[in-house]
């Protein structure tokens, strides 16, 4: 059905704009609350050291061709030695990062606080939107959609013949949720707690797993074939000097 529905401009004035303004204000509020509630975290010794070890191993892998073969082999042995090499993680010790996270009370509290500060405002706003702004068409999406989106975008509209492009305010809420991230980074600076989408992505790839990183670095280091690049430099220096002198 290609007929065009005419939407009242009052919808724009009283639904779309107030909803956006409310979401922006709630985001700003959450930012300040999270700043107040943030506790300083003493860095864990093992994690700091492991981070540094990884950086050093990565440097070794990247610039391996710049140092003499003997030194490279010595360093590689230092890192991947079976008994006491830095990158070697004995099988039994490979900790399950999830268990580690929940056993450390500070970290668990921190995660709970972050989760709460994200979930509660979202839930409340969603409920508010559903309660007040349901049952009517709020906007028209400029591009055509398939029928599958009907259940998601047209929750309060119980007419099955309305074009799927006409959506309810729930979809406007979701649009704002993901779209205001850019606006927040403009207003609040780069590091703000309202980065929900980013945080959700972070949570799905579960956090800092040092043991796996170490193992990956060790494998990478074992693979490296050392090819000393320095002999070539003599020829290159010769070329440079020839150009300089001539």
């Amino acid at each position, binding site marked *: 059905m290609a007929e065009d529905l005419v939407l009242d401009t009052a919808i724009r004035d009283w639904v779309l704009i107030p909803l956006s303004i409310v979401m922006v204000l709630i985001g700003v509020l959450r930012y300040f609350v999270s700043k107040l509630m943030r506790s300083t975290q003493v860095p864990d010794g093992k994690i700091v050291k492991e981070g*540094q070890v990884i950086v050093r191993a990565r440097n070794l892998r990247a610039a391996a061709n710049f140092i003499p073969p003997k030194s490279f082999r010595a360093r590689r042995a230092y890192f991947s030695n079976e008994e006491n090499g830095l990158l070697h993680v004995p099988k039994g010790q490979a900790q399950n990062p999830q268990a580690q996270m929940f056993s450390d009370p500070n970290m668990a509290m921190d995660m709970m606080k972050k989760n709460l500060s994200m979930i509660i405002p979202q839930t409340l706003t969603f409920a508010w939107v559903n309660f007040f702004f349901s049952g009517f068409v709020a906007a028209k999406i400029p591009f055509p959609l398939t029928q599958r989106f009907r259940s998601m975008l047209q929750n309060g509209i119980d007419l099955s013949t309305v074009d799927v492009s006409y959506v309810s305010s729930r979809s406007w809420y979701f649009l704002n949720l993901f779209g205001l991230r850019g606006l927040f980074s403009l207003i609040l600076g780069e590091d703000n707690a309202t980065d929900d989408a980013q945080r959700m992505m972070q949570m799905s790839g579960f956090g800092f797993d040092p043991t796996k990183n170490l193992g990956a670095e060790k494998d990478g280091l074992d693979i490296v074939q050392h090819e000393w690049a320095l002999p070539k*430099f003599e020829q290159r220096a010769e070329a440079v000097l020839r150009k300089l002198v001539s």
Partner: protein
Amino acid sequence: MVTKTEESQLNKLENQVDNGGGGAWEYLCLARKLKVRRSDKVLKYGLSILNDSRKRSSLGSDEWTLYEQVAVAAMDCHALDVAKDCINALQKKFPESKRVGRLEAMLLEAKGSWEDAEAAYSSLLEENPFDQVIHKRRVAIAKAQGNISVAIEWLNKYLEIFMADHDAWRELAEIYVSLQMYKQAAFCYEELILSQPTVPLHHLAYADVLYTLGGLENLQTAKKYYSSTIDLSGGKNNRALFGICLCSSAISQLARGRNREDKDSSPDLPSLASAALEKEYKLQASDKLSVLTSTLKCLRVSS
């Protein structure tokens, strides 16, 4: 290390402020960001901002960072009373702060009361064992007292934890060279080359240490690293050019009679290096050119 563009920007700002055109605050911010050590300028311009109460209030909350920066610069210039005033102001504002505690311990160190400073740093470290600045200050105390072995010990312990800190590796290398422990210094320079392979200074220092260690293999390696320095610095590094000439003459002296020719070395390199040196001297120090030519002739004759 500061890049060339940043350094030129800093110098431009410094000139501007020196000659009376404003921009002191931008200069101080840039100096703080790049962590350069221009303490006399920082002290002069920082104090002029801090003493003018109008300018000071216009800074807002950055005022306290400026106090910290000026305090450190004052301690570097040994203007200890200025430093004490700044630290007092900071203490009034932030009574229980660890950062201010660190500044107070630095003031004790600047005054020369080593034991008090050491005790202060140890207590600060107990609260936060991962404060890199405090670790390094402890090493500096040991070095200033002349306890080089203690300094080496502290620095090694620091590097066991923070092994990606290339400034610390550089400091350790220089200490080892001053103690003539060249093998250990070579190891440290290798670390530096690994972390920053395109900086010619590290190649040059490594080549110097290898040349000092001596022995045919080290000399050949040193020659290679001198050539990499030349390549990375575009042929402008006179020390590397001299290094090539010295290395080749030393190698040919050692290899006389033995047939261990390095198959990668190019035979024209020493002559090219000496030609480049002569050209440079002609440009910049023409009165020393005769000394240079005679030295180079000696090196070539002995080869």
